[in-house]
Each structure stands twice: as structure tokens, then as C-alpha cells.
């Protein structure tokens, strides 16, 4: 077996719920509901899905960054790091400390949240990276400055406070933070969402370069399918807390086997659109009270009676390709009819 196929992360039957109590009424939001997935060394795995489908909740568990009211109620999240295996769903905070930044790093959604508003950026780098890197003084600074330069950030940013930087610069700073220790596994939640398209492309290229160079694995979460198209090796689609389809990027775009994926791919607006693309009917389901059977059935154009009653299992439908749909054989890619080829960049 080649190194490429070595498994770095195994998630099994993971359930993570937000469990809350409002005025004596308890509420449970089933944000991650029975996800099983495997990730390999050296790959970029993209996670897509609409807002509030549970993407962030899922990767918070992967990143060992869960806090009440979010709780793991079932399942395991096992990493095979170079310093040994660890199940972060059940590890102690001390055990998690041994892998954070150096082995496992997490770029949170909303770049401000990691950057302390009253600390200069340079200080934040010291707080996070000095210990794992084991460098001090000038050697440390040099390492950081060189790393920032690759992200097209001048050394001055180390002296700046977060509010003095634009949204895009802050985002690059957090990417810098997450990659400066050369971790084995990088988790990024919407890392390029606030960037202009020129910088976005550069940052994606950079993440790919760092990934290839360090042999790291990257889990990349974004709702933006065009980003997945260009960086992911495999893409997994989350709908209402469940993984509904997973496969090699190309197959997901050109031969999706779940009606929801087909919709996601076709709904992407393009320059030149003067009309709206066909939108999905209905609202995202309420995860406190998700639909029975296939969770997509209230919005699914292919739904039949069985879908309303029985949960479709994950089935292998091709090499590396799995889907959870009773009617996957009937799924046709929706064609992009409104995109005049000429105006695409």
C-alpha cells in the first residue's frame, strides 16, 4: 500500500448534539448525526453543504474544539499521528494539548475569533506557536516572518492589532497561524470566504503547496462548490447532519449520485447569469426535529414513499464513491443551461 493510501483519520458513527435547557425545556440539536468517514494522508478532503447543515459542528469535533452545549454522544474520531494514535472524541485536554498545532491545527470560521483583539498579531503567534516550534527570539521571528511572506503578508503585520488589518489580511494571518508549525492534519472552516478572488486563488494554491510539501492532510470546509472543484481530491456532502454522498471530486461534479449534490453543483451562479438558477424548494430542515426517513425527502424531486419512512444506507456506487439515496441509479446531473460559455472567465 502506498503512503497515499495510509489512513490518517477514521471517524466512526459519530453523533454530536447540542443539548440545551431553556427555562426547563430541554432541546437537542442533532448537528452531527451518525457520520462515518475515512481520510488519508496527503489528501485534501472537501466538505460541502448548505448553511446550518452541521459542517462547522462536525469539524469542531474533528478539531477537538467542542465545548458545551455541543457533546459527542456516540462514536470515535481516531487519528494516526506520527506521535501515536489518539481518539480526540474521548481524549483528555492534556492529551489533546500534545497534538494541537504541531499535529492537528484548526482554522476557525470567522478569522476574528482566534485573533485576540487586544493582542498584537506577533504576540498571538508567540502564544500559539513558540512552544510547539521550540524556537526562541530571532530564530522564531525569522521563521514566522518567512512564513508570513509566503502568504504575502509584510512583517509589519506582527506589530498590528487585528482591527488594523482588513478582513482578507486577518484571514491570511490565521492561515499563517495554522500552518506555521507544519502540522500533519489541517482543518480549515471557510478559510477563503472573505477574500477577493485573486487572493483566494493564491491562498488556495498556497494551502495546496504547503499540503504537498509537508505531506499534510487537509479537511477543507466551504459551501462554495467552485473552491472544492479546484482544491479537493475528494468531496463529502453533508445534509442535515448526515454525510449523504462522498466521492472523487470529478465524479461529484460530473456524475453525482445524490439529488442534493446534483442540485448543489447546478446552483452555482456564474458571471453572465441574468436569471436565477433553479433553487431548491423549501427550507433547510430543523435539526431539533429532523424529517423521518431520508432527511432530504421534503425537498427531493425524486422522493418516493419509501424515502419518507426508511433511512437510506450509505452504498458504494463506484471507486471511492458512496451515496445514501434509495434512487441513486436515477440521479441525472442537472445541466447548466443558463451559462453562456463565452462570458466565463
Amino acid at each position: 500500500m502506498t503512503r497515499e493510501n495510509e489512513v490518517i483519520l477514521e471517524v466512526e458513527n459519530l453523533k454530536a448534539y447540542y443539548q440545551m435547557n431553556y427555562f426547563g425545556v430541554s432541546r437537542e440539536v442533532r448537528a452531527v448525526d451518525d457520520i462515518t468517514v475515512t481520510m488519508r494522508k496527503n489528501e485534501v478532503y472537501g466538505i460541502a453543504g448548505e448553511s446550518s447543515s452541521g459542517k462547522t459542528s462536525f469539524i469542531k469535533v474533528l478539531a477537538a474544539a467542542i465545548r458545551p452545549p455541543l457533546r459527542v454522544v456516540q462514536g470515535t474520531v481516531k487519528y494516526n499521528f506520527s506521535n501515536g494514535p489518539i481518539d480526540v472524541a474521548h481524549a483528555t485536554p492534556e492529551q489533546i494539548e500534545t497534538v494541537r498545532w504541531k499535529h492537528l491545527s484548526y482554522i476557525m470560521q470567522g478569522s476574528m475569533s482566534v485573533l485576540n483583539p487586544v493582542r498584537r498579531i506577533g504576540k498571538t503567534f508567540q502564544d500559539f506557536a513558540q512552544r510547539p516550534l521550540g524556537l526562541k527570539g530571532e530564530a522564531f521571528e525569522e521563521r514566522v516572518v518567512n512564513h508570513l511572506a509566503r502568504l504575502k503578508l509584510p512583517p509589519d503585520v506582527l506589530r498590528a492589532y487585528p482591527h488594523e488589518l482588513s478582513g482578507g489580511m486577518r484571514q491570511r494571518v490565521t492561515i499563517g497561524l495554522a500552518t506555521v508549525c507544519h502540522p500533519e492534519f489541517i482543518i480549515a472552516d471557510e478559510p477563503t470566504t472573505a477574500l477577493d478572488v485573486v487572493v483566494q486563488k493564491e491562498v488556495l494554491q498556497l494551502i495546496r503547496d504547503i499540503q504537498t510539501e509537508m505531506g499534510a492532510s487537509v479537511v477543507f470546509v466551504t459551501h462554495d462548490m467552485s473552491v472544492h472543484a479546484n482544491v479537493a481530491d475528494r468531496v463529502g456532502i453533508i445534509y442535515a447532519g448526515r454525510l449523504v454522498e462522498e466521492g472523487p471530486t470529478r465524479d461529484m461534479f460530473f456524475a453525482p449520485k445524490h439529488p442534493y449534490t446534483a442540485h448543489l453543483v447546478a446552483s452555482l451562479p456564474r458571471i453572465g447569469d441574468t436569471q436565477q438558477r433553479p433553487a431548491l424548494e423549501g427550507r433547510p430542515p430543523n435539526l431539533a426535529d429532523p424529517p423521518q426517513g431520508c432527511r432530504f425527502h421534503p425537498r427531493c424531486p425524486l422522493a418516493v414513499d419509501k424515502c419518507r419512512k426508511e433511512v437510506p444506507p450509505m452504498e458504494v456506487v463506484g471507486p471511492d464513491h458512496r451515496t445514501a439515496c434509495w434512487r441513486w441509479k436515477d440521479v441525472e446531473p442537472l445541466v447548466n443551461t443558463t451559462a453562456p460559455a463565452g462570458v466565463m472567465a
Partner: protein
Amino acid sequence: MSTLLDVRDVSKRFTMGGLFGRKTIDAVMDANFSLSAENPEIFTIIGESGSGKTTLARMILGLEDPTSGEILFRGEKVDRHAGRAARLKFMSHVQPVFQNPFEAFNPLKQIERYLESTARRFLDTGDKAVIDRAMDEALQKVGLSLKEVRGRFPHEMSGGQLQRCAIARALIPNPPLLIADEPVSMVDASLRMSIVNLLKSLRDDLKVSVIYITHDLATAYYISNRLIIMQRGRIVEMGDARTVLDNPEHPYSRLLKASVLSTDDAGAGKLMTDAGMLDLATDSVGQAGRLVDRADGRSVRVYEGV
């Protein structure tokens, strides 16, 4: 024709650092444009990360003083230091929707509190039923309802839900001008369309003008009347949105369009940017140049010797 908003030769310079020598940043340089009061439009600002879009928006909102130039709203100067009553009146006319919904809401405060205090302030009432109705109406306009939001804290909602709440909050005083700074960057494609369609219907049905700041060229094309493209503090191209985006002229505008990720080669990992194009676009950085008008109505920044 009267103007709703007039941005005249506006510049903003920030001074950064202190102990280790000062550094100035020209965040916005000589911005000029105006919006008409009679024809509400979606006026889009596109540009580099850090090109001054948010700074410009903050000056229009009167949250930041221009270093030079002036901004007039319905003929009156936008003044950060005006009295409380005047500020409140101005704020009920020009409402912001900020870039990052996670920053816009305090994590310890229930979302409805924001809506409630905005309603209380602008409707000038303490009547609970009136306030609830105003909140629910505003939330319905963005596809939510008070019932769904009630009791929830920001961290209990996803980015997209939060952003819809932020827009709902801005809609409470029925403002004629909305300044939406990347209102759709955190939301998925179908929700993105529903929000831009919302902006469109605000313009068409409620006659609200919208300054729409975005990195998304596709939605800019879809909803804007006019747009400006900014690079390092300067407007480099301005004109009818479709004219400019169909055929961008300034090297930076061209680079921008060429950098939009396509799904046509999904899985091929193509991320290279044409080096020549990149060079051309960076050549102009730091040069003042001047805006010249073209026959098709656009203005483009040109440089000596080019």
C-alpha cells in the same frame, strides 16, 4: 435630479504603529461617485482584499471621518460629530449590514435583543406588541420568523442564519439606503441567491438603494446597476455593471475576472494565474494615473506612458 448620496474626492489615511516608527496607509484615495434619489439602484463595490471597500463604507455610514473630501447624504454633510438626534435621524436612513456576521453579534446576547433595541430606538416605542410585530415583519422579509429566532444566541445559529438576522435588523427603520458589506460571503449558493434577490426586491419594490460590497462577481453581475472596482485604495474602473464585467478594461479588473474559479475542470486542481496578467495588474499599483471616460459610459484609470 436630486442626489441621495454624494461622495466627493474622499480620501482616508490611517496612521499605524507608534513606538517603532509610524506608517501611514492610504486606505481610500479620491473616491468620487453619487447615487440618485429618484432611481434607486444597486451600486456594487468590488475589489482587492484591503483595497478600502469597508473603509469607504464606514465613512458613508459616518463611522469614520474622511481625511479629506466630503460625503453628502440628501445634500447634508455626513457628520460623525453631529448631535444625538441628528445622528439617530441619519442612522434611520442609512443602515449597515456588516461583513462578518460572527463579529456583528455579541455571543452573550440573544439575537432578538438586537432586533428589539433597534426597533425600540427607531420606532420610538416601548409597546411590546408593536416591537414584536416589527421584528417579525423584518425577519419574514429575510425568510425567518420571530418564532425561530426567539431565545437563540448567535452561536446557536449558522453563519447564513445570522446574516439574514443582520439584514432583518437593518430593515427595521425602513431605510432608503442600505450598505451591505459582503452580506453573502458566508452563505451557500442557493441562500446567496435568495439574499441577493432580497436586495433586488428591496430596490424594486421598496425603492431602497443598496451599496453592495462583494467579492462575488457572479451576483454582482446579476443584481447591480453600476459598479466600481477598487485596487489599493483607488477606483480603477467604474460603469454599468454588465458592460464592465463582460469586458473589463483595467488590468486589475481583467485579472479579477480571470481569477474567478470555474467548475469546468473540477478535480484537475488548476489554480495557476497567468503571470503576465498578474504583472500587468501589479504594475499600476502605487501610480495615481487618472480616470478617463469611455464611449460606453465607463471610466477607467489610465497611466502616463501606457
